[in-house]
């Protein structure tokens, strides 16, 4: 998010620089030989091998020709040859990249396999190989650079095309009877055109540099013709006498290459349609946590007794940078208190701010996200200020998280055992053996069979439900006072969901920890929690006891949520009630 914002900010100057730069290069390619052609060819024995002067800013060569004029006049040859090579690579690369998508499987495998093998070889080796065949000449080098670029370009196109072919809209077209060629023309090519243009521009930059390289080696443009690479070759031979004769063409090559690269960047960052509503929390800068209206000298750690709330948030506001700079407030002043051992549920739809509220309660909103509150504490630890070592220990041991996607919430590179034991090893200083013993007990308590063997395994060897249980077990390693469970069962099958919820509830009865349970499913939240908060658009619209939900619900949104979701008792003869304007609500957020 941060890098994207930054890029869109420099987009305008970059776009202008690129346009002007490319215009200069194209202009020089057209008029260069006309204006400076004669001067570039004019030999003068008297002026040979001069250093830079007002008359010859880059000096002269061994025949007394002006190097600057040669650089300017050489633009056309350099650019045309690079474009020729790019055209070869792009044309054949597109064909070879798109062809496999319509070929039968065996041929497709053979072709992509061959491209992959060729890709292992650097372009210069391929170019040298083709150079050896076609000899040291301008056309030979153009063909060599062009052909050497084909595998990379074909591969890019193939990847692009197959990703588009895998989309549902292509399947839909196939179902209605659009043939392979039709799919290619109607769906693949229009969607691939943008990225293709970017790739072609990157490639043109590469071709220009490659061509200069070949000419520099003496394998490209031959005397008396000249391009930038050739001029560089002539220049470096006399670098002691006149460095500018080498630096001059070098600058031309780098500048043109740079403009092309910049152009590809500009193409790549097409403006996005911003769908975010900007409320703009003025005075709240990213990466700044503020405690509005709070005594500056408040101690970081307040001693708490068991009767105090586990978690307290007063006037909690959370903002993130918007798509076009500035910040967008996503949570607008949430009040929340969780008592020891209490199970609090938050229900809301996507974009309601329920997940980031939970992250803020755990003190896990990272810059550029910004948190502001009158008060935000976990068991007396002030989450708005910097954390002391004691506070970190408390948070590390007493606060646990379970996330929605069990595939990504455990580190794929570390064993389950390592991930379970590290918090107590760091914060309690227990020995590795004791931590391991605790981990065995924790895994066993969430019903994972053969825990000793399982500790040595990696997350990918666990099923989705087992990973969620391992996350719960991780929370049981310390002395949990709050488990934040953010849609812990959404990615799971209903029968597995039941087991994970059983484990959560069991963990709660065993340790008397509080649980913050978040879901979009109001029936699930109500069935699992003691108390429910209904969130919508960054605000808590209603708070009620779970067992009084059907009786006490007042807010129209809560009532609508209850009514519009079919359950096992819904009347099948009647249409479902519909929340009038909610359908047009933002999905983008």
């Amino acid at each position: 998010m941060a890098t994207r914002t930054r890029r869109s900010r420099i987009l305008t100057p970059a776009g202008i620089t690129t346009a002007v730069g490319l215009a200069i290069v194209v202009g020089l390619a057209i008029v260069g030989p006309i204006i400076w052609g004669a001067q570039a060819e004019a030999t003068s024995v008297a002026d040979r091998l001069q250093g830079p002067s007002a008359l010859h800013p880059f000096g002269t060569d061994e025949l007394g020709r002006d190097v600057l004029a040669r650089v300017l006049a050489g633009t056309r040859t350099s650019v045309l040859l690079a474009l020729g090579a790019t055209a070869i690579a792009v044309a054949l690369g597109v064909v070879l990249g798109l062809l496999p998508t319509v070929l039968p499987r065996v041929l497709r495998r053979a072709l992509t396999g061959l491209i992959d093998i060729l890709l292992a070889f650097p372009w210069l080796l391929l170019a040298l190989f083709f150079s050896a065949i076609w000899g040291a000449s301008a056309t030979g080098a153009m063909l060599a650079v062009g052909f050497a670029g084909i595998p990379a370009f074909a591969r890019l196109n193939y990847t692009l095309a197959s990703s588009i072919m895998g989309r549902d809209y292509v399947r839909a077209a196939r179902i209605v009877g659009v043939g392979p060629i039709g799919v290619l023309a109607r769906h693949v090519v229009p969607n691939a055109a943008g990225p293709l243009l970017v790739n072609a521009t990157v490639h043109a930059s590469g071709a220009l540099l490659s061509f200069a390289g070949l000419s520099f080696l003496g394998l490209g443009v031959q005397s008396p013709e000249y391009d930038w690479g050739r001029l560089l070759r002539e220049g470096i031979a006399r670098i002691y006498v006149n460095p500018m004769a080498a630096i001059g063409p070098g600058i031309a090559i780098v500048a043109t290459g740079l403009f092309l690269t910049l152009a590809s960047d500009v193409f790549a960052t097409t403006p996005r349609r911003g769908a975010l509503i900007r409320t703009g929390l003025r005075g709240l800068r990213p990466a700044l946590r503020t405690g509005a209206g709070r005594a500056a000298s408040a101690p970081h750690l307040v001693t708490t007794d068991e009767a105090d709330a586990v978690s307290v948030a007063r006037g909690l506001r959370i903002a993130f940078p918007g798509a076009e700079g500035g910040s967008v407030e996503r949570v607008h002043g949430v009040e929340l208190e969780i008592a020891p051992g209490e199970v609090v549920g938050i229900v809301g739809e996507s974009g309601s701010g329920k997940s980031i509220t939970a992250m803020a309660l755990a003190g896990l909103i990272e810059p550029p996200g910004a948190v502001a509150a009158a008060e935000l504490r976990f068991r007396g630890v002030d989450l708005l200020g910097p954390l002391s070592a004691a506070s970190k220990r408390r948070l590390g041991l007493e606060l646990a998280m379970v996330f929605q996607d069990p595939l990504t919430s455990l580190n794929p590179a570390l064993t389950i055992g390592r991930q379970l034991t590290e918090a107590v090893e760091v914060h309690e200083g227990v020995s590795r053996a004791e931590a391991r013993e605790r981990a065995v007990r924790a895994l066993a308590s969430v019903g994972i069979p053969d825990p000793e063997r399982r500790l040595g395994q990696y997350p990918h060897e666990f099923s989705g439900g087992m990973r969620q249980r391992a996350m719960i077990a991780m929370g049981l390693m310390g002395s949990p006072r709050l488990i934040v469970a953010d849609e812990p069962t959404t990615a799971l099958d209903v029968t597995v969901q039941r087991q994970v919820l059983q484990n959560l509830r069991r963990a709660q009865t065993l340790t008397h920890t509080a649980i913050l349970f978040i879901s979009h499913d109001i029936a699930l939240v109500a069935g699992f929690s003691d108390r429910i908060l209904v969130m919508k658009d960054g605000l808590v619209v209603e708070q009620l006891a779970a067992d009084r939900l059907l009786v006490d619900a007042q807010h129209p949104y809560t009532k609508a949520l209850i009514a519009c979701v079919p359950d096992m008792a819904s009347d099948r003869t009647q249409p479902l009630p519909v929340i009038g304007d909610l359908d047009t609500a933002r999905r983008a957020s």
Partner: protein
Amino acid sequence: MAISLGIVVVATFAIIHLVPGDPVRAVLGPSAPAELVARTRAELGLDQPLPVQFWNYVAGLFQGDLGTSLQTHRPVADTLAQRAPATLVLAGVSFLVAAIGALPIGLATAISVRSGRRRVLDLIASAIVGLLIVVPNFLLAVGLVWLFAVEWRLLPVAGWGQPAQLVLPVLALAIGPMAYLARIVHVELLVVLDATYLTTARSKRLPGRLIYLRHALPNMLTSALTIGGLMLTGMVAGTVLIETIFAIPGLGTTIVSSITAKDYPMIQGVVLVYAGMVLVLNLVVDLVLMTIDPRSSLAEG
């Protein structure tokens, strides 16, 4: 691997046959006497049927016989053995320099971007890195020679054999890939730092060193190594230009001069050696990746 090797052998064998026109005439020039043309043709074995030629070529490969140079009339294999060490030293040292330099740069820039501090500095750093990626190594070499050898006279312009003569070529070859690798490390690290499992790690309030070294680093190693492998093969090829600039007696100068002289047996030999180096490097990278990734190592056995 076996398929790749087969393709390489066929491709190098094919070079001489793909040359437009008569390769022997191309070597000797149009005015060469017919008798000399015929003798050279026989020397190259081109008077025999194609399958026999291919059989002889492959059989020769197995005996380490790569033919005889048309220029020097010495065995190609001898020249290659003599020239290869310089190229290997240059590529190897450059790779080490690039790899050792890239990691801390990538880590430092990523961490400082993420913490949101020093924005201007980040912008400047990423601009420099971007520029270094775009500038091709032969231009960088020219710039380095001009600064260090011509203007400041600190280092020799060219040559081979002394440690001081290694500095500029290595820098010229290493800086671009180093910048590129640093960028990859930077980007990958930012992706990893955004992953949910890092939020899990942060929720345990582990010290920063554990978060970065234990949780983040192993997860970006795979992509960094894959890129590192590509970088290394790119460097092998990059030596061609660098050797030419610094007049280093390696494989690069050999292939350039033999292409200019149309010394086909020599070209075939050098291309074969380069391709072989690339294949071996790829194999090594694949093996390393397999041993460090828990998923692939378990899948294999």
